[in-house]
Every structure is written in structure tokens, then in C-alpha cells.
């Protein structure tokens, strides 16, 4: 049997028999080279209570080349793209070693959720948010966990500042980690709502940063 297939089959079997690690692997289609991994968000983080799914592609030269992984579940995290789910982690690139397994790699992703590395970001906007106002970042990350990963509802004070929520139960403003008052303020000048959100996100109009950004600067950006 081909060495790659033997190894993958064994890894899948190992994961199935191991009930303690909380890491699951299942096939997406019939190929053993395209898998879905999932794990629980680590406790004491904004991701706690959520379940995170990861798309796994096993390359031809596996295990001598790293597996390709990206998040299927949307995650608000400096090292994970909030759009594509791409992951910035050294062991998925040059620090890969053939001794790593799907399970150990998924556990590494889990611990990445515990310890963000905002100085080597995948998603620059999220990283900016993290650096400038951590409490606000945490709030947003928790909100995303709730909406996308089935995590617990966000605490009462967070929700109150974000009402009213739209039909889908997803509030774009909260999603972007912004204050409703700020969005309303610029929306009332006649700019479309999604444009306002986009610009405020780009300028990192959050927390203590708000005081540093001139309103004219925002308007200028909106006019572009």
C-alpha cells in the first residue's frame, strides 16, 4: 500500500479511537485526502464553547510536506483570515516536520486560539483591533463564536450596546467590533451603512483609538 494512504488511514483510525483529545476527523467526500477536522474552542478564551471546523487537504508528498489547513468556521483572530479562514502558523509552513500528525496539528491550532500572535498577523485589521483595544476585540471574538461556532450568547451588557440586531440575528456592527453610535453618526451624514462599517473597520475606529481619529479623516475616507 502507498505510504501516504497507510499513514492517513492510521491517523484517521487513531483519532476515532482516541476519546480524550476532543479532536475529530471525518471525510468530506470519499477521498481520504480531503478531510474535515474539528475541535472545541479552548476554555477561558473568547472561543470557549464553540466548535471549530477545519478544512484539511493532504498533499501528494505528505507527510514530507505540510498539510493544507484553513478554518471553515469563521473565526475572529489575528492569525486567521476573517474572510478566507487562512491560517498563519509556522508549523503549517517551514517549521513543519513529518513527525507531526493531523491530530497534533489540530491541537496546535487549538492552542493558537489560546495564544494569538498579533505581531505576525494574517488578518491585519483584526490584529490592529487586538493591539489597540483588547477588551473590545475579545467582545467581538466572543460574538463571532456565538454566531458562527455555536458558542454561548454574549453577555448582557455587550448585547445591549449592539441592539437592535437584524433579522438573521447577526449584527454587522457587532461583527465588525464597532459601536452602533459611531456607525449611526456617519450614516446620518448620508453615507450608506455598509460603506461606513467598511471604512470604520479599516481605520480601526474602536475603543481608545476613536479619540485619535479625526472625524474629517473618516469623512475623507468615506468620500474616496
Amino acid at each position, binding site marked *: 500500500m502507498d*505510504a501516504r494512504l497507510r*499513514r492517513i488511514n492510521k491517523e484517521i483510525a487513531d483519532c476515532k479511537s482516541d476519546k480524550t483529545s476532543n479532536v475529530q476527523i471525518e471525510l468530506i467526500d470519499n477521498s481520504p485526502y480531503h478531510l474535515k477536522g474539528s475541535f472545541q474552542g479552548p476554555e477561558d478564551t473568547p472561543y470557549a464553547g464553540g466548535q471549530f471546523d477545519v478544512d484539511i487537504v493532504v498533499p501528494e508528498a505528505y507527510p514530507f510536506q505540510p498539510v493544507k489547513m484553513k478554518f471553515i468556521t469563521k473565526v475572529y483572530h489575528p492569525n486567521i483570515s476573517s474572510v478566507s479562514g487562512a491560517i498563519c502558523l509556522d508549523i503549517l509552513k517551514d517549521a513543519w*516536520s513529518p513527525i507531526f500528525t493531523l491530530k497534533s496539528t489540530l491541537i496546535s491550532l487549538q492552542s493558537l486560539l489560546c495564544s494569538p500572535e498579533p505581531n505576525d498577523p494574517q488578518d491585519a485589521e483584526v490584529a490592529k483591533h487586538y493591539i489597540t483595544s483588547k477588551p473590545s476585540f475579545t467582545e467581538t471574538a466572543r460574538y463571532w463564536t456565538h454566531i458562527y461556532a455555536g458558542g454561548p450568547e454574549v453577555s448582557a451588557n455587550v448585547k445591549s450596546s449592539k441592539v437592535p440586531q437584524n433579522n438573521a440575528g447577526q449584527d454587522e456592527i457587532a461583527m465588525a467590533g464597532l459601536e452602533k453610535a459611531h456607525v449611526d453618526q456617519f450614516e446620518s451624514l448620508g453615507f450608506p451603512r455598509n460603506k461606513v462599517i467598511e471604512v470604520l473597520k479599516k481605520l480601526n475606529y474602536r475603543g481608545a483609538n476613536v479619540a485619535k481619529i479625526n472625524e474629517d479623516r473618516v469623512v475623507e475616507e468615506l468620500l474616496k
Partner: protein
Amino acid sequence: MSSDYEYSDEDGDYYDDELMDEDDQDSAPSEEEMDIDAFDGPIKEKRKAYQVDFITLSKQDVEKAMDENIEYITGLFGIEPEAASLLLRHFEWNKEKVTEKYIDNQSGVNAAAGVSAKTTPPRSATSGPSRSTRRTAPASSRSKKSLSVEGPFVCPICFDDTQTRTLALACSHKFCTECWMAYATNKIKSEGEFKITCMAEECNLVATDSFIQSILTTDPSTFDRYKELLVRYFVSCNRELKFCPYPECAQTVSCPAAASKFALTTIIPIVNCEEQKHKFCFACPIEDDHRPLICTVSKLWSQKCRDDSETANWIKSNTKECSKCQSTIEKDGGCNHMTCKKCKYEFCWVCMGPWSEHGTAWYSCNRYDEKDSIDARDAQSKSRASLERYLHYYNRWANHEQSAKLSMDLYAKTEKKMEEMQLTSALTWIEVQFMRKAVDEVFRCRMTLKWTYAMAYYLQKGNQKEIFEDNQRDLEKAVEDLSELLEQPIDAETIGLLRQKVTDKTVYVQKRNEKVLEDSAAGYLEGRWKWNVTVEGFD
């Protein structure tokens, strides 16, 4: 000017410029320079002011140089050559650094460089202290592999339990030979990596050359690639060496004169590898022969061309500047009543004058001669002047490149004709070679001309620049004359005359080219060239 002068000048700069921690590179080259000085009298005479001395090294020569470094470390610390090699690679082949750090913290350096502690004890202590309490069957003091045929072994990589042949580095982490081979091949071939660490988690031990060789016995081409990667790394660590940038060429050029940054303010190290005659600049990635312009300024120019030329052309044909604040404006609607977004100035697109003078109810721009309009256009043309200036030089620069290519194409056609003539007339092969020589010369001169335009763009206005441009003009005129001759129809009756003309012109063109190159090289040494931009190394 004499080449002696150039040399002594460089030597002085050389030591000034080098940093303390690069001493090692410093001492070796000066020996080599001395060698050249000592016995290469005739070469010095032959070498023109605009040329540099260099030698070509084969792969074997470079490997020999690597071995010399390894021997030095081996001799100093009494360690195995393979350990010395790993240490040197870790410290970018800096002997002094290895020595210093190794004396400082032997075990720390070993760990960082991925050298097994077992390889390092002095060779006198034959059977190294057996640190391994585990079952390392054949404890070879030579550290590398332990080929064992123990009971059922499951390779932790491929989970195969039928494999009987396993290998491990000195750390005793065993894997099957097939996995080692696949791993090493992937590292070498796909990643171009020569640092191959043990596959075990958290194990930094680096495989030695002999270990790699042993796992790649059945695949010599990958091992060759591995050795080439080592050679390339060594070359890239040494400022006096450069690998020939042409694909598939494995030669290295050594040019100590160009190793210091300061020397590059006076010389343009165009070199070529011996075997294939691939011509390239030793100091910068521009593949052209960019004489007479020094590397730093050539780089400025190339950068500018990449960034600006297309943009500049577009700006020139599609935009105008606001007459008040000089912002560049693109007209995107039909109306000529323009309002500058930035300063709110209202003007007429056609005459550039203020809109207020055009009246309001009707539009007809008949105000070309109005004073305000003239002023506005003056301001506009001033701001356009720098763009025009750039395009002037750029177009000529690009034109010479284009023409050089075309003359090569033309030659391909001429050559055929020449061959035919050789068959039909009494002319010998040697007699029809004049065309080849002429075309080569035209090509060379156009390259020079091309870069003289880049140089002229950056030269400060003044007498020196005028002299430079005079030389440039003479060369250009001569080259164009010769080019024209080359395009003339060839037939058997007139070929004698044509040959005479072409040969004469070729010699003349060659002389003009020499003149331009020699004078500019001398100019660098005498500090005659002043730039209109800040250039590193010039005041």
C-alpha cells in the same frame, strides 16, 4: 591614468570600509589581490580602466575553498570535519565567528548548529563517552548511522512495520530508510534546503553530508543537487564570490575588487564566467552590462523606469495640472468647465485659463492669448518639464536597447547571405567575417549608449556633463553611421568596397566606445561626476 592608481586606491578604501566582524573575509582576499599584483604584470597592462580583474572558479575550486575553511576549524578545535562544516554553515561561513562563539559556549553553539555532542569530542578520545543509555546497537563513534535489524519496528512516519532497514542520526531517533529518503529528497528538491534536521519532534540535530550521501546512494542526482546547494550557500556567504546568474551555469566568479561597497562608487564590475562567457555585473542583479553607469545609480534608473515610464506616458497624454495647486487632473467628463477637487479652482480645460473669464451663459474658448491663460500654461509647462526631461532620456535609453536587438536580428539575415556568397564567389570564410565583428561592436556600443542616457539623466549640469555628452554624441553618430552601412544591400561586385568601409567604421566606433568608457571610469576615480540626486558614497 594608470591602473596602479586604481589599485592602491581600492586597497585603502577596502580597509576603511570593512566592518570589524568581517575581518576574516578581509584577510583572505587581500592575499589574493596581492597574488594578482605580484605576478600578473602583463594582465595589468592589458586591463582597461573600465575593466576589473576577476577569475572564474569551477565547482571543484569552490569546494576546495570550503574544505580549506573546514580544515581550519578542524585543526583549531580537533573536531570532526563534518561537525566543523555544520558549524561553519550555521555561522554563514564566518571562521572568526565560529571560533569566537565556540570558545565561548561550546555546547550552546553545538546545539544551535544542530551538531551532535558525540561528534565534537577531540579525536584523541577515540570512543566518545557513551551518553546514550538507550539501546543504540552499534555505537559508532563516527556518529552518523546505526543500521540495525532489530525486531518489529514501526516507523513513526509511515507506520510501516515491515521495514527492516532503519537509520538514525546521533540522536538515535530511528526512521525507516524510505522515509529518510523521501524526506531528504523533498527538502532538497522542492524546498532547495540543505539543512536537513532529524524528523523527530523538538530534535534539531542536522544530518551530516555523509549521512545524506548514505540515504541517497540510489539517487545520485539529488545528492548532486544537495552538494550544489552547499556550494551556492558558501558562495552567497562570501562577498568576493558570485554565482553565474545564467541558468544551468555552475561557475563562480571571484572578484575581490568589488567586494566592498565603497569600491563600487568607482568601479563597475562587469565580469564573465570563463567557460560560457556569460556576461553579468558582479555587484548587482541587473543582467546588462551597465557601463558606464555605476551600480547604485543604475539601480535608481531601473527602478524609475519600472515604476514610472508607463505611468509617465499615460500622465503625459491624459492629464493636465491644475493651474493653481498643480494637482494632476484627469478629465473624465465632456464639459471643459473644470473644478479642481483639491483647491476648488475653476478653469477651462482647453486654454487652462480661469473659468470666470469665460462668461457663464455660453461656452466658447477663444481666449488663448489672454494673459491669465498664458500664465496658467507657463505654470503647467514648468511642472511638465521634469516629466518631459525624464521621457527624453527614457526614450533614448529604450531606443538603443531596441536597436541593439534589431541589429542582431538583421545580422541573422545577413549571415545567411554571407554564407551564400561564400559559396558563389571567391571570398573565403575569413573575408566575410567583417559583418559579424561589426554587428557585435554595434551591439556593445548600443549597450554603452543606452546606459549613457541613464547616466546623463542623473548627472549634474556643468562642464563635466557637457564633455560627457560630447563623447556620447560622437559615439552615437559613429554607431548610427555603422548601423546604416550594415543595412546596405550586399552583392558580389561591391562587397570589397563595403567591407573596407565597414571595417574602417568598426574600428572607429570601437575607439569612440573606448573613449566613453575610459573617460567615465577615469571620472569616477578623479571624482569628476556629480549627481543631481543623492547617491550613496558620494557627498
